[in-house]
């Protein structure tokens, strides 16, 4: 068991890299072999991460929480940087989500990517390692390295397999995130010079710069910029619509499903963990940006005619809930407002985390669905569709489930996130939360008005006669796991909330919050 504890994360982390390297040695023309190999290889992290999920759940029930599966090996001793990985309630579900979405994406791409197959699968597996790494890293250098590892393959995925305007989107994505990560790196170095360590666990204990608000704020905003661009928060979001619109389907799924979560994850792991004082002091900024993102993103969605762009903007809106929840916790931490229930701060973070997970599932599913439509029609133009509900009932059904989940229908996954976020935020930052609630209504409006009404209801455009067929087997296989998860979490969120809540309580306690 000790062996499992120590090595399981490392295996999950490097298995895709290994697979990627092996893919390089498979001859280019054996495309089927590359596809099959990649998919099977990606099953290993999926199975292992499921095991970790279950195992962590068992430990939770037994009462052990906190960081588990830790492994620390010296790496660059001169810098005090080490290979330090571990997982807690925060990261275990996200690791699982990463593995799941990657496998589904690979499975879906196996049928839809036809040129440069080898490079595609190589990059995708590389990307998976990068994402795992960020969620597991407990060392700033390691964190940064994997953060960048995740960036490069995505750049190529957009730039090579994207749609018409891919080069512009790719370079925009790249430069934007690069600017953010440079700022983040500077902040990391500042932390290092202050404390002499890169170890996140140690830094969390030290809580550096607590007495120096000015410098702490500087470091805070350095990291904040890197994370906010990734999340993305208004006004750093404009790379997202372009990147999403141009990326290939699987790329969009991963981008929305996981990469955006890296930023939100960083907020908790780095900002709340290491700089709780600055986080509390600037909590209202996060709240404000979150609320603006929610409302603004939702309204902008209403004006879209490009289906994929619409869903991209909806991501801005939905990630706003994450920021709102996190910021509300920050404001609670600052002690400058009075609120009724001590649990509110934890609930706000629970909501943010749930939103991260659920948004991954829901928006992932939506992007798959949009991709499926694109495969047939080769356009994202909403105005050219109509009446698909009669022609493709299965597709309609799945889309409705995902759409309703996205607009936060109770009984489906998305609701819980909204509920928890608002439950926390309404107690702490009432006015902001009240403004944010507008976003919920507008979300319903754009999902139904813009998407459902234009695509599924109304008259069938004869242009597509015979060209739009209903979902085929592999598309169903891709989507069913996500749909099942939406229902499962929607009906009984406890397994996830247990993890998140424990992590949230631990983080807040560590940050000095008195329950």
């Amino acid at each position, binding site marked *: 068991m000790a062996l499992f504890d120590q090595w399981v994360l490392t295996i999950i982390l490097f298995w895709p890299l290994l697979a990627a390297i092996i893919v390089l040695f498979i001859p280019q023309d054996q495309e089927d072999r590359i596809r099959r190999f990649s998919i099977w290889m990606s099953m290993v992290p999926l199975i292992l991460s499921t095991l970790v999920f279950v195992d962590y759940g068992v430990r939770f029930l037994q009462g052990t929480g906190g960081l588990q599966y830790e492994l620390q090996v010296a790496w660059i001793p001169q810098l005090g940087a080490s290979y330090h990985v571990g997982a807690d309630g925060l990261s275990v579900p996200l690791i699982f989500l990463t593995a799941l979405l990657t496998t589904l994406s690979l499975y879906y791409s196996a049928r839809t990517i036809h040129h440069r197959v080898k490079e595609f699968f190589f990059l995708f597996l590389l990307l998976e390692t990068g994402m795992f790494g960020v969620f597991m890293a407990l060392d700033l250098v390691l964190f940064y390295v994997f953060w960048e590892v995740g960036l490069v393959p995505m750049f190529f995925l957009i730039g090579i397999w994207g749609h018409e305007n891919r080069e512009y989107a790719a370079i925009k994505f790249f430069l934007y995130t690069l600017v953010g990560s440079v700022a983040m790196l500077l902040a990391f170095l500042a932390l290092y010079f202050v404390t002499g360590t890169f170890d996140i666990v140690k830094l969390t204990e030290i809580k550096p710069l607590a007495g120096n608000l000015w410098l702490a704020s500087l470091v805070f905003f350095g990291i904040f910029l890197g994370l906010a661009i990734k999340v993305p928060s208004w006004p750093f979001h404009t790379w997202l619509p372009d990147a999403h619109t141009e990326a290939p389907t699987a790329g969009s799924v991963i981008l929305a499903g996981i990469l955006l979560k890296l930023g939100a994850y960083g907020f908790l792991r780095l900002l709340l963990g290491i700089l709780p004082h600055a986080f509390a002091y600037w909590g209202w900024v996060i709240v404000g940006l979150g609320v603006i993102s929610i409302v603004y993103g939702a309204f902008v969605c209403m*004006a879209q005619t490009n289906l994929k762009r619409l869903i991209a903007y909806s991501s801005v809106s939905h990630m706003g809930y994450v920021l709102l929840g996190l910021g509300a916790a920050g404001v609670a931490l600052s002690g400058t407002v009075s609120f009724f*229930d001590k649990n509110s701060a934890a609930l706000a973070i629970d909501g943010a985390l749930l939103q991260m997970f659920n948004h991954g599932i829901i928006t992932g599913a939506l992007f798959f669905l949009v991709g499926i439509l694109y495969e047939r029609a080769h356009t994202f133009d909403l105005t050219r569709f109509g*009446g698909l509900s009669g022609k493709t009932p299965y597709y309609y059904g799945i889309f409705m489930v995902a759409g309703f989940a996205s607009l936060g*229908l109770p009984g489906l996954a998305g609701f819980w996130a909204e509920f928890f976020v608002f439950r926390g935020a309404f107690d702490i930052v009432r006015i902001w939360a009240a403004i944010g609630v507008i976003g919920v209504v507008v979300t319903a409006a754009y999902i139904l008005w813009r998407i459902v*009404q234009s695509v599924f209801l*109304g008259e069938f455009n004869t242009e597509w006669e015979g060209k739009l067929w209903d979902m085929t087997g592999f598309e169903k296989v891709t989507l069913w796991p996500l749909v099942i998860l939406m229902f499962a979490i929607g009906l009984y969120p*406890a397994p996830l909330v247990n993890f998140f809540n424990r992590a949230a309580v631990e983080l807040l306690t560590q940050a000095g919050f008195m329950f």
Partner: protein
Amino acid sequence: MDGLLFLIPALPFLAFVLIVLFTNQDQKVSAGLTIGATAVSWLLGWYFAFRAFFDPHGVAEEPIRLSIPWFPGGYSIFYTGFQVDVLTAVMLFMVPFLCFLIFVYSVGYMEGDPRFSRFFAYLALFATGMLGFILADNLLLAFIFWELMGVCSYLLIGFWSFRKPGETHIDHAQVKRARAASIKAFITTRVGDTIMLAGMVLLYAMTGSLRWSEILAPETLEKLADKIVSMPVFGVAPWATVLAILIFWGAIGKSAQFPLHVWLPDAMEGPTPVSALIHAATMVSAGVYLIIRTFPLFHVVAEGSNSAMWFVAFIGTFTALFAATIGIAQFDIKRVLAYSTISQLGYMFAALGIGAYIAAAFHLLMHAFFKALLFLGSGSVIHAMHHGHHVSHEHGHGHEELPIEFNPNDMRLMGGLLNKMPRTAWTFIAGGLSLSGFPLITAGFWSKDEILADAWHGGHMIVFWTLAIAAFVTAFYTGRQIFMVFFGQPRSEAAKHAHESPNSMTVPLVILAVFAIAAGWVGIPETFPGLGAVVRGWFQSLMGAQLEALHLEHETLPFNAAPLLISMTMAVGGLFVAWLIYGRKPLGYEDPLARPLGGLWQAWHNKYWVDELYQATVVAFAKWLAHFLYNFDDRWVIDPIVDGVGRYGRRFAGAVRRFIDEQIIDRIVNGTAWVSNVLGEFLRQIQTGQAQNYLLAILITVTVLIVLGIGVG
């Protein structure tokens, strides 16, 4: 046996899942599953309901419970589950029973529809929502089922929205209307629900729980009433008031009260009349149920302008009259009923607003019965009109010249159906009388009278007189409807060829007619001369037990002839005026009131232009804002700034090192292909084939390394 509580909503849900996944192809099995599951739920529901009826005080004090932990939040754990107390029991008596009848009726009504199975799946899901909602022991779970009903309403209203025109008896315009109506219904109720969500989370934050038993406990309510919040714009109010009003907004949306009433009449586009029935008779009462359920929260600050009660009373009273007047000027048989529903729900809210808890619950129950009857009756009429239309076509009478387009719902084309379809007609008339509150015999009279008496007794004169006028209007338009549909001469070929509907449709009508008349007798007040001594206010004492459990006082009203007589006059007077205008002489295609009333009639007929107003303000503003923000985002400000920064940065860099910019950055953009190209180019340039060049490179490298080594070490 208590453990089986969860089965009541779970069984229909199981039916839904089974139909969607497996039996979609088999219509009979699908219908059988839904009806069977509902029947079992009905029996189980009645078992629990009657347990409560036989021991009201015990159950009110200690509800039948089933509870499990749901999720953690901070250091607290949220429990969820089902419970049956007296109020639930009353609903449990009505809901599954009505559902069952409606579903049986649907078998006949939906026969031949290609999506028959799917329809029954939605019905089952609806039953799940409604049953779960009334059984939920906390607001959150109730909210989930509440929204589930919202989805069902969306699905059922839009059920015919993607049909090809002409496939069955649906025309093109109807498809379009159905589509718009379903989305409108969902979004309008969503507005209310979202405000309610805000109230719910605040309530949760302040009380740490959402269980009825905990949030409605007197000490919690005291706390909420004592805490004061000061808000921008609205000023200062106790928290209890704020929360109550926020939650009430959910009910406004769901029960289609002004200003969120606009979706309900449009919802009549659903398959006639089953979904309409669901929306009008059962689902909308969820809003009233919710307010009855959370009544203590409203009642805790009962006096003064800070009370949520006056808000509820205002909305209810206003809507009661507002919707009733619109009902006068409608021609669509179902729309009249829809507006009457809105109006009657307004009655219930008005009752709650003046504190008449029992009267509201009583009217809720009675209304459900007679409105269900009326909708099923109207469905039967429409069914008959439709067949009549077909038959007249087949017999060569197809070239009928009508001044208006044929529509099976249009009352102007009916008339004289009493002889063609007597069973439908007489049951419909029974329902109509009950709706108008025909004195003494009908259920509607007893429940409406109770509300009026409460208003009179409580001294709420404005409420009383408004409701009294509304009662008059109600009786008037009901009479108008009955006379237009069933009396006089047939005004179209379709009406001439109409005939009675099959038994599967009429039997539920007869059963409901019995309830629509007789059910009201359980609530004859004890103080009523003569009859009161027989019944002894059974319903009042039943609900009284619930009130006692909530620690609210309730008193038996002394008998007062004044409101009783006014109420009777209004009902009979309304019917009489209707007879004068519509029953006495044969009708044309134009309404006799249209010319004399002029602009007022136009306002009523066009529903006071509320839809147009919303379209011109809220919707237009939202669309404008969306486009503005999008342009702000993508064309005017944010993205241009980003692009501009990028462009000028590039230009700057280009001025300095244009070569690098073109050779490297542009190539990075083009991805690996370019990168390898660039690399290839580079390699090609340095690969001169001259060994000496390579050696020079080695020399330089080694030199640099050594020099660096000297420098560093």
